[in-house]
């Protein structure tokens, strides 16, 4: 038995947990490599062009895994923290996988509905018959739950880069964006720099948001807004939740007079177009930082 894990979507949040979990249970697994052009090109073939980029990317990873694993591990995350949902596409990705790949592997897709640990416990029991071992594996893995790489932030001025973790930590997507900000002399903070309590706050508008990751985005936005010089929001073309929350944030930034840049990305997005926008955005911020606003030398 060899379990394939796609390095996409929720991998960027639970990947370390899963690695530790499977290792403790002595289950052999393989993780697809970081996204590259070939993976993306493959992924695009499996879904309609209207679908968001992260879903296209995960399809590419599933394609990469076929013939390399006997099982595919793809939990169906539906509801977290009572009443908070992931998005319909994330929930449906299991069905896309079934449709295209069920001849290649056996798909392990436990449904997660407010029962993250219990679901993993049951899964563990199926893999080894030893409940103690499973409990140990979960306890061990738990410490990895909130550990994903934070982009280093040092020195001002700061930009809040707001996007789903699977966009920001998939460097194939985010690298041109992050690099351009760096070249312009900015440091980047992301929502991962905020502590869990604040991230899941239900104060104010956040209590109306029923998408778990959008709520995090909004909370981070709200908390960091006074501390940063500008906000860059990367949204996937075709993403329903993003399109709503982004508008809310845009309005709020507008009221507080903070520069806000929306970058809409899909597989056709050219780095040149992104760079032009980011450069202009950075120059606008620099101009604001200079008190000498009357000069036109830019």
């Amino acid at each position, binding site marked *: 038995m060899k379990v394939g894990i796609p390095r996409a979507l929720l991998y960027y949040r639970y990947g370390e947990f899963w690695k530790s979990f499977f290792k403790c249970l002595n289950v052999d697994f393989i993780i697809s*490599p970081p996204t*590259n*052009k*070939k*993976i993306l090109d493959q992924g695009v073939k499996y879904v309609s062009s209207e679908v968001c980029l992260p879903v296209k990317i995960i399809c590419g990873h599933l394609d990469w895994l076929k013939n390399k694993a006997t099982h595919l591990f793809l939990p169906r995350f539906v509801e977290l923290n009572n009443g908070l949902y992931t998005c319909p596409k994330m929930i449906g990705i299991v069905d896309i996988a079934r449709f295209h790949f069920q001849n290649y592997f056996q798909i392990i897709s436990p449904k997660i509905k407010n029962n993250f640990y219990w679901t993993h416990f049951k899964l563990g029991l199926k893999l080894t018959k030893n409940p103690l071992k499973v409990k140990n594996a979960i306890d061990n893995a738990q410490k990895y739950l909130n550990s994903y790489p934070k982009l280093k932030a040092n020195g001002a001025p700061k930009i809040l880069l707001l996007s789903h973790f699977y966009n920001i930590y998939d460097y*194939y997507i985010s*690298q*041109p964006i992050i690099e351009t900000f760096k070249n312009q002399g900015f440091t980047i903070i992301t929502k991962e720099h905020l502590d869990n309590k604040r991230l899941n706050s239900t104060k104010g508008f956040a209590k109306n948001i029923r998408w778990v990751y959008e709520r995090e985005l909004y909370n981070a936005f709200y908390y960091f807004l006074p501390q940063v010089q500008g906000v860059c929001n990367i949204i996937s*073309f075709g993403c329903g939740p993003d399109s709503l929350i982004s*508008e809310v944030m*845009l*309005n709020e930034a*507008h009221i507080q007079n903070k*520069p806000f840049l*929306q970058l*809409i990305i*899909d597989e*056709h997005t050219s*780095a*040149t*177009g992104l760079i*032009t*926008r980011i*450069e*202009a*955005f950075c*120059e*606008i911020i620099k*101009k*604001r930082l200079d008190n000498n*606003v*009357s000069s*036109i*030398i*830019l």
Partner: protein
Amino acid sequence: MIKTYLGIDVGSISTKGVLITENREIIAHAYLRTQGQPIEAIKNLIKELFKDNKNIEIKGVGTTGSARRLAGVIVGADVIKNEIITHAVAATYFYPETRTIIEIGGQDSKIILLKDSVPVDFAMNTVCAAGTGSFLEHQAIRLGIPIEEFGDYALRAKKAATIAGRCTVFAESDMIHKTQLGIPIEEIIRGLCEAIVRNYLGTVAKGKDIQPLILFQGGVAANIGVKTAFERALGIEVIVPQHFLIMGAIGAAFIAQDYTQKTKSTKFIGENLLDINFKTKTFECRDCTNFCEVIETYKNTQIIDRYGDRCGKWSEKLPNII
């Protein structure tokens, strides 16, 4: 010798250039089609600009537009600036009161908001060409009306036919349908102008606070029908500046002037660039699975620029990067 500064704006549809003096007078300007051959277009532009101006000395060069980098390495630019900034600089020079710049070019459109002569916000269209110059031109050809007369047709109409502005395909089929219904061509053209404005205000300018003074520039600003439609939709006067086509190039020249007055030198390689054989080549790097398309620019046989790699291994090897 008159001291001059050169500004070049190379977009996907058109290539524009100006020569300005120390006093910011425009002594020559040119507008050409890029026709997918930016290098040729840049050379022709230089030829055109220098044709009647033998007695000049170039003190600084700025490039802008989507091919600003290529233009910059070829001519030896002192500054390479993105088009948001150059448009803003030119606009505020001529109209210091400007708060909003509406720019609709051949294939893209943008909005720039300014405060105290400084750009504070902007937006560009993303993927869709609906409502840009090339779409208008396509419709003009299809209707058999010279594009220059489009605006006058629109003005003659008493009312506008309803045309969908969201998408070129829908707009076109709407127009065909309306023609078949026997609606006069003037009304259809006016409808089209209004659709372009609606599209612009609903996408590019969405949520932006449009304040006077409003400048309308870029190729589509030549169309009085669209200008009028903007005024009707916004309820305020819209100004089309005299040099609406070349504002980007003018801004680039201004910035080059400001910059080289500090550095006291220019990197401009001179008119002999016309005799140099420039080429761009692309290759797909296969060293890893990213398969980057690396773009190289050659000056005769020497590589002068290379970019497009994600890892930086190619661009960093460049001998004398500009």
